[in-house]
């Protein structure tokens, strides 16, 4: 265990990259998720088809394969992304698809009467969406969204395969240095756990704040 304490700075560096990739991907995944959900619900037919296709591909193939396609595959077509860029892009696109399903469900869960009432007061569909439907849907979406985000935090370990020295890779390097497994893998397990607790706490706060109006 002493070894773990000695190497905490090194782990923190790994944790930094894990967090970095997670937070950036969360941000873009959120945007992608909202837009794709709206596109699937309200978009013209061709856009719905594209959105469905996208969700189907992202959910139906392993994240690691997607990361390899982006990192190693795109190079053949002249797009050379750095490790971190490819990692963030891959995770955003992947989590965005999952989130879009969450949001779609949440939007559909808002009673139809709400939309009708909004229209009755003279709102346009866009206004109704923004002012009435969306605020309610976000509340419904938070718990499943938390699932996706925390899942993503852990899936960042796949990024080690692209040459990013995040938490898992940090542990692997230390194992090779000291020839012991258990303390290092336990340590990163604990770090992942602490980070996911942090994310849950933040989401809980958001949930509470959004509930205040009710």
């Amino acid at each position, binding site marked *: 265990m002493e070894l773990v304490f000695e190497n905490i700075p090194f782990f923190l560096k790994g944790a930094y990259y894990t967090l970095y990739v997670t937070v950036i991907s969360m941000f873009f995944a959120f945007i992608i998720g909202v837009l794709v959900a709206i596109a699937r619900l309200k978009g013209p037919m061709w856009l719905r088809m594209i959105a469905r296709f996208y969700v189907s591909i992202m959910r139906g193939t392993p994240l690691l394969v997607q990361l390899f396609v982006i990192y190693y595959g795109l190079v053949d077509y002249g797009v050379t992304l750095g*490790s971190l860029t490819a990692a963030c892009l891959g995770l955003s696109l992947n989590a965005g698809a999952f989130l879009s399903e969450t949001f779609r469900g949440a939007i559909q869960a808002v009673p139809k009467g709400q939309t009708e009432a909004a229209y009755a007061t003279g709102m*346009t569909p866009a206004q109704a969406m923004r002012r009435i439907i969306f605020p309610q849907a976000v509340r419904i979406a938070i718990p499943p969204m938390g699932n996706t985000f925390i899942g993503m935090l852990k899936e960042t370990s796949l990024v080690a395969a692209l040459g990013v020295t995040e938490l898992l890779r940090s542990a692997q390097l230390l194992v090779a240095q000291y020839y012991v497994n258990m303390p290092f893998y336990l340590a990163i397990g604990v770090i992942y756990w602490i980070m996911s607790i942090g994310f849950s706490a933040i989401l809980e706060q958001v949930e509470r704040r959004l509930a205040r109006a009710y």
Partner: protein
Amino acid sequence: MKSRKGWTLTALLLMTVLVLSACGSKATDNGSSNGAQANNELEQIKSAGTMKVGMMGTYPPYNFLNDKKEMDGFDADIAREVAKRLGVKVEFVSQEFSGLTPSLQSKKLDAIVSQMTITDDRKKVLDFSDPYITNDVKIIVKKDNNDITKLEDFKGKTIGVGLGTNDETYLRNEVLPKVGDFTIKTYDDVITSLKDLDAGRIDATINNLYALKPIVDANGFNIKAVGEPIKSDQAGIAVRKDNPELVAALNEALKGMKDDGTYNTIFKKWFGEEPAQ
């Protein structure tokens, strides 16, 4: 259905944001180049001022993380010295061995210095510098195992080997047809394969003796090398194909190191003996 226009606009916005989000995250990483096609990669490295060198980082004493959390070891010292002689800094990227070649080919790396054995198969896709080390490869088993002493004894056993390594190709293409059926279990780094050997999950592995020494020194494992060397491998610095200027510069640097004794100093530092002539 009234304002279809509004949704078309949203759709347009969606596309823009999707594209922007891709660019936005791109801007967070300055390590990417959009495949600039200068002919001479030596000049490219020199003008960048750094050479990106890929290595496993989990293969002591060749390449591993030292106490100061820097890449260290024989490979790292060789790479540093070569870079110094090219007049550039070196930037190490640690990656699983099987990912190194794809990374080099997709221009994420400039060179691989990670005990990559020079083979004809690899020469089809990579170029190599002159060899900078020769390793004898032996069979490695648990200390109390006396059943396996030669390749023929592999029959019916489980043999571990690094994924994508020259040893894997050798086991699959040469040993397997000759010896008969045995199971090959692949690993992403050397340490894990030796750990599994120690834990009894595989019967044997093949590796070179220098790699074994620090592990035995650290008293971690009850393992031993047996029999005569099954083969002798030469490792070189791997670079992308059709890169004669870079290869020539690397060879010149390696030759300079050998001539002025720097190479011997590095070799002795890590292996405690003079390099074989």
